[in-house]
């Protein structure tokens, strides 16, 4: 019962809140740049990615080449490739085939992070719930941003932007206070990310920056603190014990 659809929906709520604000901004910007409300919403429902959509929007309105679009999306969203590989190690045995093809749509930074923070293996039902609430939020936020953008004061939508980071901190902090390796990885990634952002001559898109920082930090973590053999043995003994 703990890993069911309803729990997924509930765990998706904070993500949904954060998405409302980000996608609201996207809707606002899309219409501002000349898309109609349904076009902005259509992009959100088919892409479900923040940095990729903002970059894509800019490229299409500037009349960029399709190959430019391919390259931009590839590098901005390369992190999803890592996340999807990571997620294959976390899902349970029934989560395969068509469920993977369909629910792969739900691999976003936030959904991935919450799924990985679960103690138990992730079931397809749980993941479906975890995808659905944020997906609705992402679409609704875009639609509202596009339709009502001129009526709602920007400040009201803005404060909700902090929700998603609050949630991230809620995942990172408890784990980082208990585990020195995780703390190290977190610090490296955070510092590197700030350096890339603030040092003027380094120019990376936000999506690519996240990839570079996460890979560097996780690689250092894996090199200095490989998961101990006994943890490994315990982990493998667990499912066998339950069967």
């Amino acid at each position, binding site marked *: 019962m703990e890993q069911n659809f309803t729990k997924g929906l509930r765990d998706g709520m904070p993500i949904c809140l954060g998405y409302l604000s980000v996608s609201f901004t996207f809707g606002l910007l899309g219409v501002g740049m000349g898309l109609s409300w349904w076009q902005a919403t259509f992009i959100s429902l088919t892409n479900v990615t923040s940095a990729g959509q903002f970059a894509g929007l800019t490229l299409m309105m500037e009349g960029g080449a399709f190959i430019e679009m391919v390259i931009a999306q590839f590098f901005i969203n390369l992190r999803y490739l890592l996340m*999807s590989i990571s997620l294959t190690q976390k899902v349970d045995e029934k989560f395969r085939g068509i469920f993977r093809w369909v629910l792969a749509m739900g691999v976003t*930074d936030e959904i991935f*992070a919450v799924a990985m923070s679960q103690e138990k293996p992730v079931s397809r039902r749980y993941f479906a719930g975890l995808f659905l609430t944020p997906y609705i939020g992402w679409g609704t936020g875009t639609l509202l941003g596009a339709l009502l953008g001129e009526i709602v004061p920007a400040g009201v939508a803005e*404060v909700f932007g902090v929700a998603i*980071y609050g949630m991230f901190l809620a995942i990172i902090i408890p784990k980082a206070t208990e585990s020195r390796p995780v703390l190290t990885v977190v610090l490296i990634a955070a510092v590197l990310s700030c350096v890339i952002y603030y040092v003027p001559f380094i120019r990376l898109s936000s999506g690519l920056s996240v990839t570079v920082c996460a890979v560097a930090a996780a690689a250092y973590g894996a090199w200095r603190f490989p998961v101990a053999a006994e943890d490994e043995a315990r982990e493998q003994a667990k499912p066998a014990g339950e069967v």
Partner: protein
Amino acid sequence: MLSLSEFFKYVAVMALVTYLLRALPFVLVKKKITNVYVRSFLEYIPYGVLAAMTFPAVFTSAGGLVPSLAGVAVALVLAVRKKSLLTVAIGAVAGAALLTFVPQIFY
């Protein structure tokens, strides 16, 4: 002006590249990875991703620096006490809202 057919072509390219990056590895990697370094790497990836996404973006996430920092402060206090994700998220918004709207009453 962007024509409808161009719009759909652009969106198809965007959506396809993004989807394949997510779906191909998810579908193709079926086995448990045994290499201890690769396993460790994959275990640490979420924390690297989260930390890189949070910093420095969080400092401007609620608009200005002050409301954002207020949100972060509330979130940190609640996160250290291991409150649920939703509680921490709502707390952060409340902290940010307080410092966004209360000063407006006085000025």
